[in-house]
């Protein structure tokens, strides 16, 4: 069964939140709340109240990245130094810990940052093609709600959106 996309733009965030709440409450057939995407010009952490807590997994990437960076650094540096067991420098041990900790620390951060970014891209599914229904207004000052549902649900969507003073409702061109 084919699905249709619908984008509604709102001026007011509170209205958009209300619209979402109503969508959830309406329990429209052929529509899953997971298929709702909120688009906003700024971050609205409040939406979690209506969209529900969604897990964020970037931190795991950070942890792995940072640990990998640190381990890599320490073993790279110490291993490289161990190759030169005949080259004493300044009377210090061949594998001197303080400098290696400094480098480990730096690489810990480097690994952390890099893999965090990687994690961000993966978790946020970026880079991506923009969805067909996109309005530049969303990056300006309007809130967009993108829903995906069965053809049958379209009318229900429209009703709810209009009720909540949607400025504009865009429909995907039929396939």
């Amino acid at each position, binding site marked *: 069964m084919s699905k249709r996309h619908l984008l509604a733009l709102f001026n007011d965030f509170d209205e958009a939140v209300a619209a979402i709440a109503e969508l959830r409450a309406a329990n429209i057939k052929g529509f899953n709340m997971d298929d709702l995407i909120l688009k906003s010009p700024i971050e609205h952490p409040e939406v979690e109240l209506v969209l529900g807590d969604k897990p964020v997994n970037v931190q795991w990437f950070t942890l792995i990245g940072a640990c990998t960076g640190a381990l890599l650094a320490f073993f790279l540096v110490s291993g490289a130094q161990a190759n030169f067991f005949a080259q004493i420098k*300044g009377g*210090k041990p061949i594998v001197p810990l303080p400098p290696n900790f400094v480098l480990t620390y730096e690489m810990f951060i480097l690994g952390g940052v890099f893999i965090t970014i990687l994690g961000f891209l993966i978790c946020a599914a970026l880079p991506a093609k923009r969805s067909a229904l996109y309005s530049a207004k969303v990056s300006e000052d309007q809130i967009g709600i993108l829903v995906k549902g069965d053809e049958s649900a379209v009318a229900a969507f429209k009703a709810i959106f209009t009720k909540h003073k949607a400025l504009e409702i865009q429909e995907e061109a039929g396939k």
Partner: protein
Amino acid sequence: MSITNLLTNWSDFRQQHPSAAHPHREYKWAMSIDLDSCTGCNACSVACYAENNLPVVGKEKFAHGHSHHWMRIERYWDNDGREFADQGAQFLPMLCQHCESAPCETVCPVGATNHTADGLNSQVYNRCVGSRYCNANCPYKVRYFNWYNYPTTENVWPEPMNQQLNPDLSVRSKGVMEKCTFCVQRLRASMNDARTQGRLVIDGEVQTACQQVCPTGAITFGNLVDPSAKVGKQWKQQQVDLNIDKQPKDAEEKAAKLRGYRILEELRTYPSVMYLEQLRESAV
């Protein structure tokens, strides 16, 4: 593989130097300079120019502090406000001290300067990138930088002066740090000879250029590990221990003082050059 190596030899890798527990095995090149014999004649310095292909930089560059004298004679006065320098001057031949715990080594970003197994502070010209950090960290300021490309500079080695260059060591190009090597080319030659004959280098078999030329024999050079070497005997007699930064003899009150000392020892560089204090007669 280095990681295996690392894990196997961890305790060795964590060893500090210098330490009495891990002495040098076969060789530890060291020097002693008797300031009472040194007359400040500069022969050692010129010999070093001849042996080590040091460029003559000329007046203008000398004025800018670009001179290359691995062996330089410093001249100090001790007037204390008297009208005349009536006890003469104090001459001090200053060269790389080949510190056991050399401050220059740790700071080189590319590891161009290292401590060798025979106790030299080596400088790898090919590896040097010219950060000059080693010089910055050298308390004696005995490292000399190639500020210009001397081999191609006019009147440094004009034809046929270049034929005098010693082929046993390289001519350094611009951007490279250099310093006294204890005439490493001579050391290596005689160590190789000795090795092919299955023995160690005998005391006196190898001389540094400055030692060889010194008219008063103020410079003694040799293997500190070798019990028969004069340099080792001198160090021992003067109670200067390579491995400690504060010689116990300095704390003791003695009727007859010992003359041996190392310069800026308190910086814990553990220099390999011992100086013997200059003497002056009090009866005149």
